[in-house]
């Protein structure tokens, strides 16, 4: 009794083989990430110093620091978030809490999903047409961050909608049955229980914006500026474009410089992601249902 038959042994063997296959696939997936990070750290670390972060580029961008680009990226991302987060959250609230389930809503949802898949160079062209030319903002921080905002809007909407829909329907019914309006329900129960999820989700999704090059290249990011922008109508340098420039456009750049820029760029994204994931884990521990 209870001893293995040859069939059991065969089954076990097959299952071990599949386990190995899946493990190898997983490792293959992690490997490139590790290699990239290692390469970046090993080759970029020598470039990193406080001076690198806080000084202007020198000698035709072959030496010096990245301060204007670093600041520019932070500006662009922050301003893009300023536009896309309120708008995206409002739209998601409408779509998830108010919109009737009809063909129009379904078309809008479909459009949003598809918009998320539009290549960033297409957004760039849209940004040039709409913000630079039509609205007359010129190539400026304003035009570039609006372009980034349009690009991130669909992910903000999707991330928000997911957080909203994670709030159990039973809570809404309880409120409605007590005579609460939809807004009272959203304001008092749905939002307080999803806002943290919304914000972390949004940061996680949007941190990628920091690395985008195409959408800002034609709308507001400059190759090189010897001074900081003074208003949102000025152009700015940005890390992503700066990396492209020092890596491919400028002769005689020391090897560690582009890697240093890349390391800072990846660092910003990772820090944003880590904060957001940490925040999310912390909040999940406090979850009340």
């Amino acid at each position: 009794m209870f001893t293995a038959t040859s069939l059991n042994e065969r089954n076990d063997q097959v299952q071990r083989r599949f386990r190995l296959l899946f493990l190898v696939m997983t490792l293959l997936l992690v490997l490139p990430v590790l290699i990239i990070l290692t390469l970046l750290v090993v080759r970029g670390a020598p470039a990193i110093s406080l001076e690198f972060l806080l000084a202007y580029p020198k000698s035709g961008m072959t030496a010096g620091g990245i301060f204007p680009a670093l600041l520019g990226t932070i500006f662009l991302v922050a301003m893009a978030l300023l536009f896309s987060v309120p708008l995206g959250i409002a739209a998601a609230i409408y779509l998830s809490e108010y919109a009737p389930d009809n063909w129009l809503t379904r078309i809008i949802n479909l459009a949003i999903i598809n918009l998320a898949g539009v290549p960033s160079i297409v957004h760039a062209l849209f940004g040039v047409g709409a913000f630079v030319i039509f609205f007359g903002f010129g190539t400026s921080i304003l035009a570039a961050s609006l372009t980034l905002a349009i690009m991130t809007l669909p992910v903000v909407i999707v991330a928000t909608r997911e957080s909203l829909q994670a709030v159990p329907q039973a809570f809404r019914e309880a409120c409605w049955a007590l005579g609460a309006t939809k807004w009272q329900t959203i304001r008092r129960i749905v939002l307080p229980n999803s806002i943290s999820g919304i914000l972390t989700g949004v940061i996680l999704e949007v941190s990628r914006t920091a690395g985008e090059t195409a959408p800002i290249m034609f709308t507001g990011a400059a190759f090189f500026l010897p001074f900081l922008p003074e208003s949102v109508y000025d152009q700015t340098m940005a890390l992503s474009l700066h990396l492209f420039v020092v890596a491919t456009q400028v002769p005689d750049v020391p090897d560690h410089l582009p890697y240093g820029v890349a390391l800072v760029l990846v660092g910003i994204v990772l820090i944003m992601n880590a904060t957001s994931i940490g925040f999310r884990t912390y909040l999940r521990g406090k979850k009340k249902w």
Partner: protein
Amino acid sequence: MVASSISVRTQKLNLWYGTFQALFDVDLEIKQGIITSLIGPSGCGKSTLLRCMNRINERLGYVRTEGRVDIDGQNIYAEEIELAQLRKQVGMVFQRPNPLPISIRDNVLFGTRIHTPKADKLSKEQEEEVLEGALREVLLWDNVKDRLDDTATRLSLEEQQKLCIARLLPLKPSVILMDEPCSALDPKATEAVEELIWQMRGTYTIVLVTHNMAQARRASDECVFMLMGKMIEHTETADLFVTPKDSRTADYIEGRYG
């Protein structure tokens, strides 16, 4: 028991979910101050009928209702009816206890707070009074008085369901609708909640949906038997179970529909 005035009256009530008709010409009179249970096999329209009485069905865009439902003499499907006022008057308890993910205190005071204009906001003392009154009425006060600021979703299911009843009371409802309020509870909790419902009899008109015939028999004054969206029989509970008039009722209580 002298319960003569009618609290809920439906007339020729028909309801469709899209093209599917779930209620057919339901004419029903529910007397004030007693417990009336709705029984019938699963899918016969008990919940649907109950959900017409506070119009919570309507949030589904594809529901169409015809006929009328009068509560305390007012047609609640009339143009001028304000849903917020209707739902103050007609409370609802759900199948799965659904306390809000806020403190016990905030759960009980939720209704009062959303229905009180900012200018008339209750003072701390008044709120405490309302809170204690409601929790005492559902026999929960002694249990929770030391942890009023705990999250309500941490309570046991029995306590949660009692809390869900308690949070209706500050709004002074006249009718309380209960949709299988004990079906998520174990037998002991069921007994406790049934006992509570029985105690509330007289103060409120209670409409109780149940698929548990023993419960209907124990815990209600009158009984309505439904089948496939139609009301088949409505009599005093004792009569329905002993001398059903309709053969379909007899079949059901003898267990022939499962």
